[in-house]
């Protein structure tokens, strides 16, 4: 009897030892931008990944969006980075330059992951310095012009007119009356200010950074966009310099604001409201197509990860057309997944797809966060009444000094 017990115990020890040698825990971090129950969806998807990949256990950490940058940065700096995480498109260059993440060119090539599976701007945002540093995970575009159809009807404004610079301005003038406001502009210190500013600059043919990395804000199209924004500022609610997209949403939802600028992720909020709303794909000068600014997140593998192979497997799984739509709270970056997701969850899927295919990423620079801060000051200067050329020159001086 004693021998039997010993034999069983020895076998149990051997089995557990071999199991723990094969098992690994993959740490995955993501952030949550909406109240969609993202964490729960991801946990469910993870179960099917684990079932298909015995020996790999995935630990999902979902951090609220406002805390994500600080938590992730502290972890990376402290040598406690996860194995795989989402990072904002605008951090890719900095993370790559810092040597924090792995280039994924070879893995992508071997796995047959190519640009045509993703939206062009999203794929571009994952590339820096002739290397691929991540795989696009989710995307959205700033901005769509969401409008209150009842307010537009009452002011006799054709919604389609919002799609042109001239039409938007005329609509703003008509809609700003009787305590109501026409256009939800904002310029607080935040990235939402920058993406909306960029979309007006891009749509007018301007650039933030030229191809050689120098500042492009003093070009005629860029200054033209700034002048245009200044000219429509009187139709915005008071306090543009400290207003954010959230405060414009409040005014839009209570019926005081006719047009707000938001990405498609605004739709679930509007669907819950009693507003009669719709949207147009951004705004551009007559005869030009609106160019939105990409927002979104890419999946990356950290250099410090001891589980790079498993991390890559997990990235491939999360960006698969049949999975991608189930694990994001923005729009899936995979084109096929996005198509299905938009048709099931969003109003005007074709219009959104058209915007996604025509949007541009923000400048891919390791100093982007400083460029962004300079752009916020530029927006505040412009809305504050400073001459647009002077404000652009001031911004360019600061941007070019970063070199």
């Amino acid at each position, binding site marked *: 009897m004693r021998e039997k017990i010993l034999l069983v115990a020895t076998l149990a020890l051997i089995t557990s030892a071999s199991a723990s040698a094969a098992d690994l825990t993959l740490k995955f971090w993501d952030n949550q931008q909406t109240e969609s129950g993202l964490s729960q969806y991801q946990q469910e998807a993870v179960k099917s990944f684990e079932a298909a990949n015995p020996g790999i256990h995935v630990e999902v950490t979902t951090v609220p969006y406002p805390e994500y*940058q*600080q938590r992730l*940065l502290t972890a990376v*700096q402290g040598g406690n980075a996860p194995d795989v995480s989402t990072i904002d498109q605008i951090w890719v260059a*900095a993370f790559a*330059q*810092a*040597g924090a993440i792995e280039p994924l060119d070879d893995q992508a090539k071997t796995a047959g992951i190519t640009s045509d599976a993703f939206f062009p701007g999203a794929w571009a945002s994952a590339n820096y310095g002739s290397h691929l540093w991540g795989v696009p995970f989710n995307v959205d575009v700033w901005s769509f012009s969401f409008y209150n159809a009842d307010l537009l009807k009452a002011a006799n404004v054709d919604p389609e007119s919002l799609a042109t610079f001239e039409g938007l301005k005329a609509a703003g003038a008509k809609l700003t009356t009787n305590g109501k*406001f026409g256009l939800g502009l904002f*310029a*607080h*210190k*935040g990235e939402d200010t920058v993406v909306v500013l960029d979309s007006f600059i891009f749509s007018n043919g301007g650039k933030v950074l030229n191809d050689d990395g120098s500042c492009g804000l003093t070009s005629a199209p860029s200054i033209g966009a700034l002048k245009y924004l200044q000219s429509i500022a009187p139709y915005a*609610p*008071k*306090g*543009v*310099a*400290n*207003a954010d997209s959230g*405060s414009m949403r*409040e*005014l839009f939802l*209570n019926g*005081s604001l006719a047009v707000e600028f938001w990405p498609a992720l605004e739709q679930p909020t509007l669907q819950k409201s009693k507003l009669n709303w719709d949207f147009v794909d951004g705004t551009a000068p007559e005869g030009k197509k609106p160019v939105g600014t990409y927002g979104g997140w890419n999946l990356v593998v950290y250099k410090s990860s001891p589980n790079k192979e498993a991390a890559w497997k997990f990235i491939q799984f999360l960006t698969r057309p049949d999975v991608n739509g189930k694990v994001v709270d923005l729009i899936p970056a995979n084109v096929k997944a996005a198509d299905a997701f938009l048709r099931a969850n969003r109003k005007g899927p074709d219009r959104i797809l058209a915007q996604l295919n025509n949007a541009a990423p923000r400048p891919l620079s*390791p*100093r982007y*966060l*400083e460029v962004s*801060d300079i752009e*916020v*000051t530029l927006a*505040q*200067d412009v809305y*504050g009444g400073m001459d647009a050329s002077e404000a652009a020159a001031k911004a360019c001086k600061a941007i070019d000094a970063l070199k």
Partner: protein
Amino acid sequence: MLKRDRWLSWVFLAPAMILVGVLMYYPMIGTVIESLHSTSFINPKPQFVGLDLYRRVFASSEFSAIVWNSCVWTIGVVLLQNTLGFLTALLLNQRLPTTGLMRSLILLPWVLPGVVGAILWRFMYDPQLGLINSFLIRLGLTDQGPAWLAGASTAMAASIIAAVWKGFPFSTVVYLAALQNVDQEQIEAAIMDGAGRLRRLLYVVLPAMREVIVTNLLLTTILTFNYFDMIWVLTRGGPQNATHIFPTKIYELGFGQFRFGEAATYGVFSIVVLALLLALYFLVQHSAVRRLVSAR
């Protein structure tokens, strides 16, 4: 003191010293070292640059604006908070029917978490939906009401008012305790000499509270200089950097832009200012103790 007792005292002191050393002095020294190196997220290997970062920071117009903003912010909040706190303490020191309830209610802003208080004020300052503009419009003082936090000329004043509301109960509690310790015999003697309320306040109460007032002024100066959440939630240092102070700038550089070297440079300047204020605080404490001892 016996040799054994001396050893024992070191043993008891050691945990506290280790904690203070690890949690306070180690990061502080690290900050000073980091400020002498060019280091950021994208250049993680620190490069020794001596005082270059200091030269660059001091030469920037932003630095002078932050020094100015920090002075206006700190002086404004400290003076208003202490004045309001003292006046409230005087009121609560009276024997009124609801004094007990008022003493408890007055603490409400102070016990609220900083971020909650700041969000509350952000709502109240909202140009369109805020309580303050709605009140002004009802009184007929304005048609629309100003955008308090969006104007470079009003944002700092608005932030100061919010901070004073949040912090004055602290001063009230301290001054109330001090008022209740003023020697009643001296007050009665002053009354017998024919001194009115104002004279009693100026010549009996205030001198008796001198140390407490100075200590409270210094403490609130230190706390206000380091106050982060109110301004961060209200304006994030904007508009056009009109409300940027040292803590918000350090956070923005370090965690917003990953520029650790420059953030450390601003941090060292902060440490120097706070060290001077602390030295002043200890000096006041020391002289108060000496006065007490000599009075005995």
